[in-house]
């Protein structure tokens, strides 16, 4: 008997909650699922599939620009009980030249420091990969033991009503209870560039309510 995916993802007798699985394969990003890229600063933001092994999707920005890819503010994920899994990287190891944040967020825009979100971060002026959480009251950057690099890592972020965690490559690295989001959220990939162009490249993104 063929087994259902449903039964592999959900405990017996439980009702499935919202989930999305994106594998970023094909000739273009799924524009039914994803909205148009939003230009936050400048106009060079772009999204394209990579023609390379394990290339996934590339969200790129030119020098000094920033852009975000999300669900056009269709927000089906509960800030009190949800999570994400992302396999993603930044294309530059220079901490001044590229910033990748990928995770779940309320607004499809550049509101981060007072926005509602949970994400991984390879960010500006920060040599460590971090967990980034935010709400209207402010943001929190919780650093991991991993030094920023250009390699793909597997990130698993989980959030409940009291804490958020980030597991990187199977190791719990970050926990925080500060500035947790307070609004429903949508998946997103964000990239910002310093004085040279950079990209956030992602091969897998799964978001789910728990």
């Amino acid at each position, binding site marked *: *008997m*063929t087994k*259902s*995916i*449903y039964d592999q993802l*959900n405990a*017996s*007798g*439980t*009702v*499935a*909650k*919202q*989930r*999305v*699985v994106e594998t970023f394969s094909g000739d273009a990003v*799924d*524009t*039914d*699922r*994803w*909205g148009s890229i939003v230009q936050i600063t400048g106009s060079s933001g772009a999204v394209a599939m990579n023609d390379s092994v394990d290339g996934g999707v590339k969200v790129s920005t030119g020098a000094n620009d920033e852009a975000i890819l999300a*669900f*056009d*503010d*269709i*927000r*089906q*994920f*509960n*800030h009190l009980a*949800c999570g994400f899994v992302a396999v993603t990287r930044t294309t530059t190891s220079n901490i001044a030249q590229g910033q990748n944040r990928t995770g779940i967020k309320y607004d499809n825009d550049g509101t981060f420091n007072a926005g509602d979100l949970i994400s991984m971060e390879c960010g500006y002026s920060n040599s460590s990969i971090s967990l980034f959480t935010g709400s209207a009251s402010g943001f929190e950057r919780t650093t991991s033991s991993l030094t920023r690099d250009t390699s793909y890592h597997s990130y698993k972020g989980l959030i409940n009503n009291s804490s958020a965690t980030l597991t990187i490559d199977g190791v719990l690295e970050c926990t925080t209870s500060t500035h947790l989001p307070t609004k*429903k*959220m949508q998946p997103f990939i964000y990239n910002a560039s310093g004085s040279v162009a950079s990209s956030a490249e992602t091969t897998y993104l799964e*978001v789910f*309510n728990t």
Partner: protein
Amino acid sequence: MAYKQHFIEWFSGKQLPSYWTQTNVTGSGASFEMKDDSSQGGGGFKITPTSSSNIGEIDFNNKRQFSQTSSMFIATARRNANPAMFSMGLTGNITNADTNRILVQNDSAGSKFKLGSYDGSSGGALTSTTIGVDGNWRNHKLELTSSSVTLTVNNVLHATRDENLPASTLQPYFLSKGGENGIRYMECYNT
């Protein structure tokens, strides 16, 4: 064993994928939208007809890849309005509800969930379960074999029908009548 046709829909994102056909079966103007809602596990996709007698449906526009003798339909759905009715399952015909179809129905005009089966000659019927109709999210499984169709809800078998089984190949559908109905997961496969 060779891989058989297997379909999964998460009902998440900006809008419904274009491999679905959205149809006003009765009336016009039904809205077909992703629901911007994270409560109760997530809002999924909703169909809202414009009047109590109108019907909106999503289906595969008669691309029928699922077997009438060995297939499974799984869906997490709820009725979001009262009065309203949803019906969903596998169908051979997108215009005639009483031909080549298996379904589960939640109708606020009735008292219980129902399992239905209809054959190729417009013969068929609905069998009541013990589940009272309400607006809760539930998981529904329809398992179709050459001799029966069963309805399992939240992993409990609730009804079996062994007559008026479909006689032709099938496609998935979700139908909303009279008010808003929602769905956030669907899986279909040949067994």
